[in-house]
């Protein structure tokens, strides 16, 4: 998948993954904060409990302060097995009664007069959590505040917090993966109509210019509407073009016909031999012009037909006979033997009657004009999965090295006179649109040169 053409699926999944990752990151951060708070709360209770026990052990006897350290306080703190414990008991005079004299909580001791004060500080190179408790004591020299400071290293808290965080992380990761997997499935499911639409477009006959009618979700409707709009415009364009060709055909043909008509009216008897020769040339050129014009317009018409018309089952015998009738003028040279032979079992092919007729007619016309000297035969046959129309003549034929070229538009053979114009080009284009081809067979002993058009039989015809 390149960066330029990432799929919709990948884009959505990537974005969801980013959102999930951000979400997971914030959840894990929240879990970490929560875990720290929870661990602090849990162990703060132990710390506070131990401090209370110590504070309770401060007693006044005979006006003097007495203190007996309760081992149970240490047992309580010992529940955090790996943590070190520091403590300090301060008498109302401010001197350390027992414990670590240099243990100083961050907040001033007096703050604890309103209640226990927790704090974090560093002691002997280790991070510790401290709690400060105060107690008012009445001694001989008046009432004063004594303080108990208990500190504990934070290993157990950190261990608990990291364990909680690890579990939360695991859960979040599992949930994120599930969400991502679910998203992927959901996206795949949701994008299925896009695939369906894509398939419909891909499998569509390129000549089919009718609007699409796939059942698509709401989001895809504008998309399909645009496609249909485009198809519609294309259809209009094609029709416009066809109309244009038809109109121009009319516009060109009418004066051309008038020209031939007028030329045919010239009375040759009154002309000098030179003029007669000129007239003959004008006549020939006019005929040539007429033929080319016909071919050109037919070519345009045939090609555009395939832009819009649907194929239908066509009898090859039928279409070939019609082409034969069209192409052989009544005024054909009487010495020319022209025959047509239909196939016994009529091959049915998928095609367009008019285009195919035009194609065959062009091949026959070409044979008549440039090939046949006294014989021209048109034969319809069936060859395997193909229907075939053969046009053979007793002329010299086209040399094999020219076969590839004569189907090109306006290609002239080297001999010069055999300008085939568009005839073979039309035949070749029609044949290839129908999945067939135009082919040649060399002149041989007892066999005339032959040009044939091969088109695959309709599906139900092929056994």
């Amino acid at each position, binding site marked *: 998948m390149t960066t330029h053409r990432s799929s919709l699926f990948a884009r959505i999944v990537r974005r969801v993954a980013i959102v999930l990752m951000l979400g997971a990151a914030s959840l894990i951060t929240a879990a970490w904060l929560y875990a720290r708070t929870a661990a602090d709360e849990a162990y703060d209770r132990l710390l506070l409990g131990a401090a209370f026990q110590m504070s309770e052990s401060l007693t006044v006897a005979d006006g003097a302060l007495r203190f007996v350290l309760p081992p149970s306080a240490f047992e309580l703190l010992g529940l955090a097995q790996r943590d070190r414990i520091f403590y300090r008991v301060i008498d109302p005079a401010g001197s350390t009664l027992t414990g670590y004299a240099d243990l100083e909580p961050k907040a001033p001791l007096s703050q604890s007069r309103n209640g226990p004060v927790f704090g974090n500080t560093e002691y002997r190179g280790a991070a510790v959590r401290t709690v400060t408790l105060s107690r008012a004591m009445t001694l001989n020299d008046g009432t004063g505040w004594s303080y108990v400071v208990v500190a504990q290293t934070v290993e157990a808290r950190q261990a608990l917090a990291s364990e909680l965080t690890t579990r939360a992380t695991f859960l979040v990761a599992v949930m994120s993966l599930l969400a991502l997997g679910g998203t992927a499935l959901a996206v795949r499911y949701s994008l299925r109509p896009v695939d369906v639409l894509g398939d419909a477009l891909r499998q569509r006959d390129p000549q089919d210019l009718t609007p699409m009618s796939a059942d698509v979700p709401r989001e895809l409707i504008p998309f399909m509407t645009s496609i249909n709009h485009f198809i519609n415009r294309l259809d209009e364009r094609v029709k416009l073009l066809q109309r244009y060709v038809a109109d121009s055909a009319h516009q060109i*043909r009418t004066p051309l016909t008038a020209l031939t008509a007028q030329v045919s*009216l010239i009375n040759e008897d009154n002309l000098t031999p030179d003029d007669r020769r000129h007239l003959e040339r004008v006549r020939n050129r006019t005929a040539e012009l007429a033929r080319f014009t016909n071919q050109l317009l037919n070519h345009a*018409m045939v090609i555009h037909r395939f832009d819009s018309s649907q194929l239908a089952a066509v009898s090859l015998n039928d279409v070939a006979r019609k082409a034969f009738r069209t192409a052989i003028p009544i005024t054909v040279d009487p010495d020319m033997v*022209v025959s047509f032979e239909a196939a016994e079992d009529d091959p049915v092919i998928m095609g367009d009657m*008019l285009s195919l007729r035009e194609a065959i007619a062009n091949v026959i016309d070409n044979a008549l004009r440039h090939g046949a000297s006294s014989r021209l035969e048109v034969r319809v046959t069936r060859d395997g999965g193909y229907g075939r129309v053969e046009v053979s003549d007793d002329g010299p034929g086209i040399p094999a090295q020219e076969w590839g070229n004569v189907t090109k538009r306006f290609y002239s053979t080297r001999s010069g006179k055999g300008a085939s114009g568009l005839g073979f080009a039309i035949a070749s284009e029609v044949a290839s649109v129908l999945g067939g081809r135009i082919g040649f067979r060399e002149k041989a002993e007892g066999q005339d040169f032959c040009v044939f058009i091969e088109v695959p039989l309709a599906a139900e015809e092929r056994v």
Partner: protein
Amino acid sequence: MRILLVEDTIDVGEAICRRFQLTGHTVDWETDGSAAADILSFTEYDLVILDVMLPGLDGFSILRALRQSKSNVPVLVLTARSEIDDRVGALDLGADDYLVKPFDFRELEARARVLLRRRTGGDATNIIVCGDVSLDRANRSVKVGKREIQLKRREMTLLEILASRPGKVFSKEELLDQLFGFEEAAGPNAIELYIGRLRKKLERAKARIVTLRGVGYQLVADDNA
């Protein structure tokens, strides 16, 4: 013969009129579609040559109206449209033949002749068979085996005469009379020319034309010989 030409292009109409008049036909020329339709409704013609694109009423409408009124006058349609559908449409609507502009005037004359003769040629419907040569007089088509052979009018007539009685010897004079009548001046060489052409076109048939020198010609089926 009386021909109605409906053509709005003056240059073309003029030429067609002239050519048909030269061969002795009467040509009425109309340039407007509705006028032509009017004339057709009360005048009998032997042939109608009809352009498609017309002012007033187009050629197809005229043709449709003509056939709806049960007239079976031969109609030859001229079209300048590239839509080949026009031709098909014309045939479907009851035209007998069509030509796409620009056309060769000799071709137009030839086709017109075929249509005129079909009208006068009577109603021979039977099929004559000799050897593997079969002649359909209605369609005026000839088959050698499976091959349809394109024959010219006189070749067809000649074959029709010979095949009507296979084995019978026809003299040159007999054939000249039946083939050309008295209107055209044609020498006996003309018969030899047509016999030659016909022989060539029946080359691979199982029937052949035998020349009996100084007597005449006969058509013989090979399986009979």
